[in-house]
């Protein structure tokens, strides 16, 4: 794909410089928190910049199935602590972990597993997709259905996915499809619309008496990236190009040279006349 400079000016498009990372030049990343443990009560989630004692962000009463929006944070090291909902900020956390946020990258810090074996997993979240495709993955957070199969349209996305695990990403064609989750004692369907350049995470949850599917849109980009820019300037407010100034400078230089040449000639003539006068024959001076 040719990603040329979006020149908002007239002119030929140029090839873009290749770069890595979602956002070159930015020093921010993104982090979100998720409670995906079916039999763990609601928690308060604290995000600290590593070493700070006061929290950057506090999410109160995060219950099973809740996934927060991404927060944009400076790249660096962070601590995440989960406390029982309503507990004092100074009380011992139920769980805590540290996370390294790289610039241009996004992460989900998820409480996974059963209440007795709860852990905080740090998931690296994809933001960019293969051109013209969407990306999907599955987080299996159903304790009742220990193993599930997930298909999208006619295609298998995650076969035999165990509780508290995350499938790999799969690139799919954009479109509206049905996500089908099948398990030993139940199944669920959901219609989802996947635009090109979007990343989705399907979360399988224990609903009231049945399986539930949540469709998370993790990231979205441009469905069609402009190949080159648009002319948005014709120079009416610009200082003129250096070429114009050069001509004026040349005029100044030419004029100055003439002045200098004329002055030098006059000075030389004076010197020569003086010299001639001082060299008159002795006979005349006497």
């Amino acid at each position, binding site marked *: 794909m040719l990603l040329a400079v979006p020149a*908002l000016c007239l002119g030929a498009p140029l090839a873009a410089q290749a770069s890595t990372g979602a956002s070159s030049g*930015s020093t921010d990343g993104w982090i979100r928190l998720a409670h995906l443990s079916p039999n763990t009560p609601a928690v308060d989630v604290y995000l600290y910049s590593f070493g700070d004692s006061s929290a950057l962000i506090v999410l109160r009463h995060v219950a099973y199935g809740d996934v927060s929006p991404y927060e944009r944070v400076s790249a660096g090291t962070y601590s995440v602590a989960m406390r029982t909902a309503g507990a004092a900020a100074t009380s011992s956390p139920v769980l805590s972990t540290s996370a390294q946020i790289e610039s241009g990258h996004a992460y989900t810090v998820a409480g996974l597993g059963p209440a007795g074996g709860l852990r905080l997993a740090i998931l690296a979240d994809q933001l960019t997709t293969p051109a013209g495709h969407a990306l999907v993955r599955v987080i299996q957070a159903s304790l009742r259905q220990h193993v599930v199969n997930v298909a999208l349209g006619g295609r298998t996305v995650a076969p035999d996915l165990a509780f508290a695990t995350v499938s790999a990403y799969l690139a799919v064609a954009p479109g509206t499809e049905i996500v089908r989750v099948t398990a030993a004692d139940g199944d669920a369907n959901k219609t989802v619309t996947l635009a090109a350049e979007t990343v989705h995470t399907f979360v399988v949850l224990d609903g009231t008496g049945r399986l539930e599917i949540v469709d998370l849109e993790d990231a979205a*980009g441009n469905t069609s990236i402009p190949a080159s820019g648009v002319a948005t300037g014709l120079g009416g407010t610009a200082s003129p190009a250096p070429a114009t100034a050069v001509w004026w400078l040349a005029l100044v230089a030419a004029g100055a040279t003439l002045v200098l040449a004329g002055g030098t000639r006059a000075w030389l003539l004076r010197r020569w006349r003086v010299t001639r006068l001082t060299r008159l024959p002795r006979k005349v001076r006497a």
Partner: protein
Amino acid sequence: MAAVGVVGLLRTQRHTPATLIASLPVPAGQVAAPPRPADSRPVARPVWLTIPVIGVQTTLVRLGLTAGGALQAPSDWSVAGWYTGSPRPGAIGPAVIAGHIDTRTGPAVFYRLAKLRRGDTVYIRRADGTLVVFSVTKVETYLKSTFPTQSVYDPTPDAELRLITCGGTFDASTGSYLSNVIVYAVEQSR
């Protein structure tokens, strides 16, 4: 001759016309909440943009791609346009809005875009009347040869904004500016 040259040089330094409004009032209206990741619903299309601190106020036209795949320019110098291939402002991803910096004879809608600073506020009104509020994170000017396409158009996991116009040195021989000015902004969380 030298005197004529010096006068010519002085006249080539044009002065900024002081015809633009210095600042505008903050718009009133219901502020939209940032998008939630779960089962996200479509948001209304953008119809109007204002940047009070630099006196910008414009309806938003829709921009597509030309036959050659380039981003269309607004045909009206005094309005900005939202690229319909980009996410809607306030939905997840980078919404792209472009506008002219100037015409052949004077300033256009995004003439003062490069004067924005981190923390300045951009307001966009949607067709349903809600306001999306963005906070500027950075303003960059890039030469065409080093334009970071990824950081302008790549997907983001939050609702962001890219305001684009021309800038830098104007090359009279090609009739175009040599650089682009990009304003990056992020939807304010509540």
